[in-house]
């Protein structure tokens, strides 16, 4: 097999790796300047403001079309998540009660848990 220095595939892979490092290094130097921060934050601030205004406008449009807005859909999703959360709470409580009563061996969290007696292996590899 050709050694790595003469293997065109290995050369290609090395070149790609070096190019990536080079681009990243160059970009990092450019991004470290205060001018970069100024421009990015100006553009980012303007874009965020525009997005916010567009969102508000769209919300009004959907209300006028008698359609649910994203906020309303999110509200419904939150209600569902809240119900899921409460179900999980009930499930966890039931598991705790089941465990306290010593019942259950179905592999779920309600099953009897292993004893908390484990010791770390000794330097020789055997448990202490």
């Amino acid at each position: 097999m050709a050694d790595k220095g003469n293997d065109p595939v290995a050369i290609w892979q090395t070149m790609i790796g070096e190019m990536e490092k080079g681009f990243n290094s160059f970009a990092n130097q450019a991004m470290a300047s205060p001018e970069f921060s100024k421009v990015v934050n100006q553009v980012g601030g303007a874009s965020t403001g525009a997005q916010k205004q567009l969102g508000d406008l769209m919300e009004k449009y959907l209300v006028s079309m008698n359609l649910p807005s994203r906020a309303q859909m999110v509200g419904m999703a939150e209600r569902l998540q809240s119900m899921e959360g409460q179900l999980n709470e009930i499930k966890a409580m039931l598991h705790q009660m089941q465990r306290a009563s010593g019942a259950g061996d179905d592999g779920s969290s309600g099953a009897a848990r292993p004893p908390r007696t484990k010791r770390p292996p000794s330097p020789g590899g055997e448990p202490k």
Partner: protein
Amino acid sequence: MSAGAGLNPAGLDLAAIPERIQSEVQRAIQRSIKGVEYLSTSGPSLGSTPKDILHSRGTMNLYHYRPMSDEIYRVPILIVMATTNRGYILDLVPGQSFVEFLLKRGYDVYMLDWTAPKPEEKSLRMEDYVLDFIPDCIRRVQQDSGETDVSVIGYCFGGVLSLLYGSIFNDGPMKNLICFTTPIDFREMKLFQNFSDRRYFDVDGLVDSVGNVPGDMIMTSFDMLRPASRAFSQVQLWDNIWNDEYVKGYRMMDRWGSDTLPLAGEYFRQTVKDLMWDNKLFNDTMSVGGRAADISKIKVPILHAVAEHDHIVPYDAAKHLIPKVGSSDKEEVMLKGGHVSLVAGANAIKRLWPKLDSWLGGRSI
């Protein structure tokens, strides 16, 4: 094949050329087949280690993973995830899951994981995370496990939250603290410093207009630390698409990297002002909800794992943790790898996980 007989003066092994061509043709065919397969299938299922949701409240979820060992250590572990990322980075797929590793080594594992904060959670502040969410989870872990002591593992900003918790509740139930790549000196996160330069970055304007800071914005700021890497990773993916293991790893990491969480607005504002601008953690002036958070008050055994090539939390930002904490039993370990490969993937399996097990086992009895 032996070098020598077939080598020409330029050092090329002429006899190996047909074999190499054949191998490349096979790979080219495999790329076409696997490329179609890649586009038509979804990635591996992540975060599938069996678990139960112990508690869920808004952005906060507390999981308990089902034990995988006949006998477990007395002290349970609570993993505190970074607020920007999903916890499944620590539970990728069987054989590459940190959580599964811990379970098989006999630990009782809980995880405090986050979901995207809802619009009405934009007012969550650092004190909600440090004085409410973490203590609430610790209480629930104590109640569920029946043990008073709890070991805490914090990844990245989860480490910062764990440190703040540990410094305020320094006589509390935390028995051991393990931090992965946790920043202390935020001046040393130089590009983040520049992105959030207080002369140009209007954090109040941003938070007041968007509420919660979108995940896309957070992801872009992470991507900008290595702006060429996402594009080059596509080239590397095509190059290696014949290799199933590479593709599986790529899909896992790509999905996780693109799954960045939004941040609660007030929490983001505090993080920028207190940590990025005023560097309060490093300057020992940090407080949360009016309570001083001096990390020198932490006295429990602590391990800090840092990555040699971490581009998100450079070593200069993380190196002050161990000198600053008040513990007498403390250790910093620097391992090869980057911010993510320190904790997940082939490097982590060989390096961090066994190190953590050997450190924590004796301290968990």
